[in-house]
């Protein structure tokens, strides 16, 4: 019966195979590829905040050179999971869909709000918003773009039966809250005032689709965008042809494009070096030093407000003592992280989320917290921990290296950190319960949004469980203020509170990186990692 023994062995091997693969999931191989974005992370700019402000409709892109003739681009992207525009949640999804669609408002790579399918927008009270739509725009199937399409798009986005990730952000908009005033005017009736609502409609899921769209973007890829999706093969590639009837005269310049999906960033980097692809839509910051200078590949950098947070539960020992949290913050050598782990493609941060990319925070002047091990030890002793503390830090695959660096820096001060690295989905199932946690927060365009999501009393994603009523009042004030100078003042006060109270250690703001070969021009990195190929050309 040797045969049956052998069969059993084979069975064990077979059964073990998936298990091994799943164990492999614990290794940090897929995190960057599947780096999740959340709904509305890219909402709005620093302008367009309150009340009666009106978008500048005169700014339509003018004709620049002959249409087409810009060559054929091959770009590398992470594989999409879904290309239903309203259901997108990962970078691969976005980098596949965005060439095909337009939004009401475009978020520029300088973080400005630009007219896209809407030419103007206004509101008296911040609660009722009227958008004037562009005329003469057609979808790829030849039908006219009208207000009905906007209504259908936003109704689908917030429909509780659809489960779009955007619904979690558009909490102030209900199905039926969007109405067509006439063919080219749309009105949003929000459930509460939202001063920078035009910023929110730049959410990457809020792509305008035709009202009679039948679903399945792979076979019905109908948008108004500069490119038409002609072929889509899941997890393999996508092909695009220039939209000859595109509404921006002279654009796009490329004749065609092909997206090739790579499961692995290392393979993307060799592909761009060997010239197999012309462009990488995302270059993870920790791989930037694997792209040799002068090899015909240029790294494009866009400063953003994306950052890592080490969150400390202020309602649990030992983090309930602010001195312990300050001690933790004092152990971090921020310059070293920026220089060595980010290769300079990051900015030192000061334990608050009000990044210098925001207009309100450009002139923010706050004492920079430098590494000071002695002071950290002193604070720990004052807090009753003369022998230091033993704590456990939980994080997930992609950013494990930063956790490692932080743990090494904290050890000399007596903060002994044991790191647990979890798969991303496991982490995000319980992240708000963790005593000491570390995760990445992606760029948001409204400066008030990140504090409001992460630090408002009782907010769903307030991981440190921190609550400060003065701070909450400042968020409200910021939302209700239009004047730039006053907004900057409020932002400075918010930054000072976070810096002093340290609910989270925030050591850097990272740049969004992409890479192009030297035959590509007219492409830029975008802080929110959007792609815009309208002006791109290839030699």
């Amino acid at each position: 019966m040797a045969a049956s023994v052998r069969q059993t062995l084979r069975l064990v091997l077979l059964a073990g195979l998936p298990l091994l693969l799943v164990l492999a999931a614990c290794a940090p191989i897929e995190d960057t590829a599947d780096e999740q974005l959340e709904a509305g992370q890219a909402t709005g700019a620093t302008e367009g905040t309150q009340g009666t402000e009106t978008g500048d409709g005169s700014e339509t892109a003018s004709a620049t050179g002959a249409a087409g003739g810009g060559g054929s681009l091959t770009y590398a992207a992470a594989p999409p999971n879904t290309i239903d525009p309203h259901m997108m949640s990962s970078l691969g999804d976005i980098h596949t869909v965005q060439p095909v669609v337009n939004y009401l408002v475009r978020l520029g790579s300088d973080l400005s709000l630009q007219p896209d399918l809407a030419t103007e927008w206004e509101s008296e009270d911040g609660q009722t918003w009227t958008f004037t739509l562009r005329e003469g725009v057609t979808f790829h199937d030849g039908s006219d773009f009208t207000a009905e399409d906007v209504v259908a798009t936003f109704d689908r986005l917030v429909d509780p039966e659809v489960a779009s990730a955007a619904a979690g952000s558009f909490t102030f908009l209900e199905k039926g809250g969007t109405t067509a005033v006439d063919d080219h005017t749309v009105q949003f009736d929000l459930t509460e005032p939202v001063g920078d609502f035009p910023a929110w409609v730049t959410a990457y899921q809020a792509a305008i689709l035709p009202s009679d769209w039948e679903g399945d973007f792979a076979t019905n890829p109908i948008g108004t965008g500069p490119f038409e999706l002609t072929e889509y093969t899941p997890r393999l590639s996508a092909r695009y042809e220039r939209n000859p009837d595109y509404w921006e005269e002279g654009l796009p310049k490329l004749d065609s494009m092909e997206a090739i999906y790579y499961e692995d960033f290392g393979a993307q980097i060799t592909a761009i070096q060997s010239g197999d692809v012309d462009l990488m839509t995302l270059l993870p910051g920790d791989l930037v030093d694997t792209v040799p200078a002068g090899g015909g590949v240029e790294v494009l950098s866009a400063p953003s407000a994306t950052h890592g947070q080490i969150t400390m539960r202020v309602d649990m020992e030992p983090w309930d003592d602010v001195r312990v949290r300050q001690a933790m913050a004092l152990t971090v050598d921020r310059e070293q992280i920026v220089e060595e782990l980010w290769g300079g493609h990051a900015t030192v941060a000061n334990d608050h989320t009000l990044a210098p990319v925001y207009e309100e925070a450009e002139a923010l002047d706050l004492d920079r917290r430098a590494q000071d091990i002695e002071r950290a030890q002193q604070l720990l002793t004052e807090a009753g921990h003369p022998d230091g503390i033993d704590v456990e830090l939980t994080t997930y695959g992609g950013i494990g290296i930063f956790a490692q660096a932080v743990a090494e820096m904290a050890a000399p001060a007596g903060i002994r950190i044991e790191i647990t690295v979890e798969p991303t989905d496991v982490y995000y199932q319980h992240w708000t319960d963790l005593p000491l946690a570390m995760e990445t927060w992606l760029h948001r365009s409204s400066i008030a949004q990140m504090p409001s999501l992460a630090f408002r009393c009782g907010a769903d994603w307030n991981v440190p469980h921190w609550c400060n009523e003065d701070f909450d009042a400042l968020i409200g004030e910021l939302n209700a203020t239009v004047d730039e100078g006053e907004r900057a003042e409020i932002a400075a006060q918010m930054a000072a509170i976070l810096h002093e109270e340290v609910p989270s250690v925030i050591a850097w703001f990272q740049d969004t990186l992409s890479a192009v070969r030297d035959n590509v021009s007219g492409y830029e990195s975008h802080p929110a990692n959007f792609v815009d190929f309208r002006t791109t050309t290839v030699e």
Partner: protein
Amino acid sequence: MARSADSGLLRYFLRRLAVMLGLLVLVSVLIFAMVEILPGDVGNLILGQYATAENVDLVRQQLGLDRPLAVRYLDWMGGFLTGDWGDSWRLGTPLAPLIGRRLYNSVVLAGVAFAFVIPVSITAGIVSALRRDRLTDRVINGISVVSITIPEFVSSMFLILFFSLLLPWFPSSAMVPEDAGPLTTLRYLALPVIAISPVLIGYIARTVRASMITELGADYTRTAYLKGLDPRTVITKHVLRNALLPAITVIANQIAWLVGGLVVIEAVFNYPGIGQLLLQAALVQDVPMLEAIVLILAAILMLSNLAADLLYTMLNPRVRAQATGGAT
């Protein structure tokens, strides 16, 4: 006599097939059970990290995950058996064409690799055995031992560095263009095939060498020589026939690995084979995709082993007697 031996072989074959089917069912149950036990949630994985609890519930409901495990399994099994493999949970696209294309790619890569590996390794093994302990043998032996120890992710990196980046002879991505002819296809597949070959060649060559040496020293070989047969005839007619038998088993054992196990090679060369798809299905707990791929790979593994055993049995009268003897 011959008829009873044949029917014995047929019964042996059918018995093996029945065992195989039973094992496949067991494997499918195990996968369902394991995904159930594993941490992580499909709803969270599909919606992204900041999904609301309501939306996660909605997705679970849409996928039918609110039903009991047994009901879900039987429902899936019913569909699978009637050819309805369903949609991938994560990608929302039908599974059969997706998996079919990936499997085709993997089989092509495996086929090209075997077409290269088998002649080279068997020749090396034979030469090595015939020149036993001489310089040729030592060189071949040394190369075999070294090549077994070079992991393919190391060799593939060097291959890309030298033959794709420094000398731009081959593409660094092995994704063959759709309209490629056979020569272009070979050019795209060259680096991955060269990367996976050393381990296989070393392994097969050493097996062939060992069995050749055994057979060369066997009594029947000496008898054949003593009968005055031409050495060439002795080797081709007697020794090789026996010495290559173990190679069949070794090669068959590599088929499933070559088709489904090249996860690293596929990642490094961005080759759209089935290994990457399996890895992704496991990572995101895409149960219908995971089930379909694992069952296909398990079937390939079992069938290639069965085929090897049958071939072995047919070529080796002693084993045949045992196999059929047990049945009759």
